[in-house]
């Protein structure tokens, strides 16, 4: 009765288009996401370079865009934030590495719904193209920041970029939401239903846990942003008044009345705060994996790590109001949001101490991925510690519109998540492409990036305390900020050097892709399932058989074992009677 046709999900495709463009293979789709994010991160970085140069030399003529008008500066702010948050920090760790390694790490031949997976990537791609198109339409890119607050974002005549550019921006975000929902559906179903035999939930690598929890957050958050974005498009184009109150724009009374800009803020941040964890949770998973592997020790407190991530995800949905202390919210709700926000410090501290406990007395191998994992922990601590400051309304109100906030969220959400991506790239590159990356170039890249990003974002805390506002196009003429100009110059130079250092990474990436030494199947002597299969993995991941899991994910330095690591598919470790 059983037909043989369905035993394999799908055979390996032959033609170039089916194999590399419209591929159903989660590994190819993961790489597509990765290279999309790599393109996007360069666009976002160049935009930030323009901003930094404009801040200290406001009259300079820049290549490509010439002299920057104040409105153009706001466009740069908007597009830098949007591209980085959506198309880099959401796309690379989850869509890229999650897609590639989640099925392999749980012993599955592919994602649960391969066609949906392909659709999810190509929808993201379309969203990215639409987002970039906003640069080239009349009026240019929108001015309303990545948060898109109305009424600025809801009125066509509110500024040069608020016409077609803003429509494209919102459309792109809405399409991205749909793509992320498809992706989240696939990740959750795959994790719940396609685990290999013996891969219980509590034997999943922490990377899988992080992708799984990230997918749950995405599933609950992106739907709300989608509905909010649809209503914003209606306010802009159909004359409804969800977000726009009565008011005048350029001296003319608008036809809107009664809308509530605060409504958008609530809906946006109900998505926006979980989005922060969507960006950082995969980094946490990667850091755990790398710290354990390269310290040759089991992860300290595996269950605590899992519950801490679940706790961060859960609390992440109840703290969105801390982005809105400036909106005149009731002090009582501000107090509740403040307490809940600070309580996220507890699971975060659990994670940090467990990471330190993992390295403690380990036989640490400082390969490049390990450096980035340690760098992740460092940035997570430095960026995270300013969180409890900003969680208090009394401190947030003076600091909110200053460079302090810029320093805070770039360290924790931007750079820490990027370090997670870098660590993952150096760690999994051998498995993805069958070649090793260059260690010396990797270490040069790490130190320039590590010192460079600290040099950029640490002084911003000081600038913010000294009163430098954010999102201002020009401040060099302001008397009270004169003494901050040298420090701003320093930040700009640091940014130029750090961005240049990323060329080392790109050179290393493409050179190793073509000329790197061949990698063995398990170059890092790691334990998870992706290292049991061939390099690069075959089409169905495990070459026709399904792995059976007998051990936990981080069995390093097991007493009595032949090697200092026991892989998940190795015969089960006999528990000692002392257990």
């Amino acid at each position, binding site marked *: *009765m*059983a*037909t043989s*046709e*369905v*035993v*394999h*999900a799908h055979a390996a495709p032959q033609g170039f288009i089916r194999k590399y463009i419209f591929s159903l293979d989660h590994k190819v789709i993961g790489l597509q996401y990765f290279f999309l994010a790599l393109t996007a991160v360069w666009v976002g970085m160049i935009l930030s370079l323009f901003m930094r140069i404009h801040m200290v030399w406001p009259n300079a003529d820049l290549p490509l865009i010439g002299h920057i008008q104040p409105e153009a500066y706001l466009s740069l702010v908007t597009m830098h934030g949007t591209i980085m948050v959506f198309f880099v920090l959401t796309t690379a760790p989850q869509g890229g590495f999650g897609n590639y390694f989640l099925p392999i790490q749980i*012993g599955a*031949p592919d994602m*649960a*719904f391969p066609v949906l997976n392909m659709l999810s990537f190509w929808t993201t791609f379309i969203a990215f193209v639409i987002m970039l198109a906003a640069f080239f339409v009349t009026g240019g890119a929108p001015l309303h920041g990545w948060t898109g607050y109305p009424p600025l974002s809801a009125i066509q005549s509110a500024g040069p970029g608020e016409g077609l550019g803003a429509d494209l921006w919102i459309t792109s975000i809405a399409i991205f939401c749909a793509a992320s*929902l498809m992706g*989240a*559906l696939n990740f*959750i*179903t795959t994790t*719940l*239903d*396609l*685990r*290999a*035999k*013996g*891969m*219980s939930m509590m*034997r999943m690598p922490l990377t899988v846990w992080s992708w799984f929890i990230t997918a749950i957050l995405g*599933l*609950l958050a*992106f*739907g*709300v942003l*989608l*509905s*909010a974005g*649809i*209503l914003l498009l*209606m306010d802009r184009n*159909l*004359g*409804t*008044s*969800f977000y726009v*109150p*009565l008011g005048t724009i350029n001296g003319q*009374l608008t036809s809107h*009345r*009664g*809308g*509530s800009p605060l*409504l958008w803020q*609530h*809906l946006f941040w109900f998505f926006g705060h979980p989005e922060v964890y969507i960006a950082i949770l995969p980094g946490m998973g990667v850091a755990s994996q790398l710290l354990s592997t390269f310290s040759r020790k089991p992860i300290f407190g595996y269950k605590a790590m899992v519950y801490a991530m679940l706790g961060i995800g859960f609390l992440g949905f109840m703290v969105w109001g801390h982005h809105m202390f400036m909106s005149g919210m009731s002090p009582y709700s501000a107090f509740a949001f403040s307490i809940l926000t600070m309580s996220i410090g507890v699971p975060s501290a659990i994670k940090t101490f467990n990471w330190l406990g993992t390295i403690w007395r380990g036989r640490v191998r400082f390969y490049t991925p390990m450096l980035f994992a340690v760098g992740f922990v460092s940035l997570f601590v430095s960026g995270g510690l300013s969180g409890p400051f900003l969680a208090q309304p009394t401190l947030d109100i003076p600091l909110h519109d200053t460079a302090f906030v810029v320093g805070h969220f770039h360290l924790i959400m931007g750079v820490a998540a990027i370090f997670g991506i870098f660590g993952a790239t150096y760690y999994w590159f051998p498995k993805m492409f069958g070649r090793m990356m260059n260690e010396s170039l990797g270490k040069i890249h790490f130190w320039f990036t590590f010192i460079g990003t600290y040099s950029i974002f640490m002084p911003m805390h000081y600038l913010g305390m000294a009163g430098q506002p954010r999102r201002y196009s020009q401040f060099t003429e302001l008397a009270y900020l004169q003494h901050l100009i040298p420090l701003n110059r320093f930040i700009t130079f640091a940014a130029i050097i750090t961005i240049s250092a990323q060329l080392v990474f790109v050179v290393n990436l493409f050179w190793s892709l073509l000329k790197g030494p061949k990698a063995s199947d398990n170059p890092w002597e790691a334990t998870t399932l992706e290292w049991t299969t061939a390099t690069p993995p075959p089409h169905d991941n495990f070459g026709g*058989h*399904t792995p*059976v*899991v*007998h051990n936990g994910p981080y069995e390093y330095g097991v007493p009595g074992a032949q090697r200092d690591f026991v892989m998940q598919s190795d*015969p*089960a470790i006999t528990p000692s009677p002392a257990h």
Partner: protein
Amino acid sequence: MATVTPNLAIRDPRSRDIGGGSPPSYGGGGNGDPGATNGPFSYGDRLRRARLGLVVGLVAVVMIFVGFTSVLLVRKGSPSLDPQTNTYARDWVPINLPWALLVVNTVVLLVSSITMEFARRDIARQVALAPVKSIPGVSLGDEKSFPWLGSTVVLGLGFLVGQLLVWQVLREHHFFVNTGPSSSIAYVLFGTHALHLVGGVIALIYAAIASLLHRPLEARRIVIDVAAWYWHFMAFLWIYIFALLLIAR
């Protein structure tokens, strides 16, 4: 040892029995054992996976409507500045919905949900009986069944036409999408639900075409089963929207 053992081993698809010497299994893994003849992609596994995927997808749909619901409630409660008197006043004008027509639409949708359920059970029975039918000489009698799937598509399209009539009536009463907050959100709720229902109709038409394309019976069963649960959820969602507009219009 000349005993003939009848080859009639009945396997419970959920059983995880493993040969001697194998390591203990730790539940959760949905892949079944690698030695099983039906492989990791048996139809039973695929059906379960598709249902799970549907449930997860419906959570996303729920969140979209949670967003709209909170907009409705917040927007209904927030006052608006009246430029003539320069005072704050509630600008929420309750929308005048054609209730009779909406009740008719609701009944049509609920009946379609029932026909959909018959279609779902019908194909499940066909799948279950397929091995019996393949035995030579066994007949199950008259196999013509009522076209439940087609009826569902017709009723679903009927509901959508009914919704268009509702919007027509609203326009005649001068309730346009930008007339006021109550009509805006009503159009949003109606429109989003209708779009989701169009998706369901497309899935049903695909299922009907799949039978023409000689896709395996089990594959069609998965499409119809998932479409049926989706369809039931759309009926439930419509009841929710109806009740929401009834209470907080």
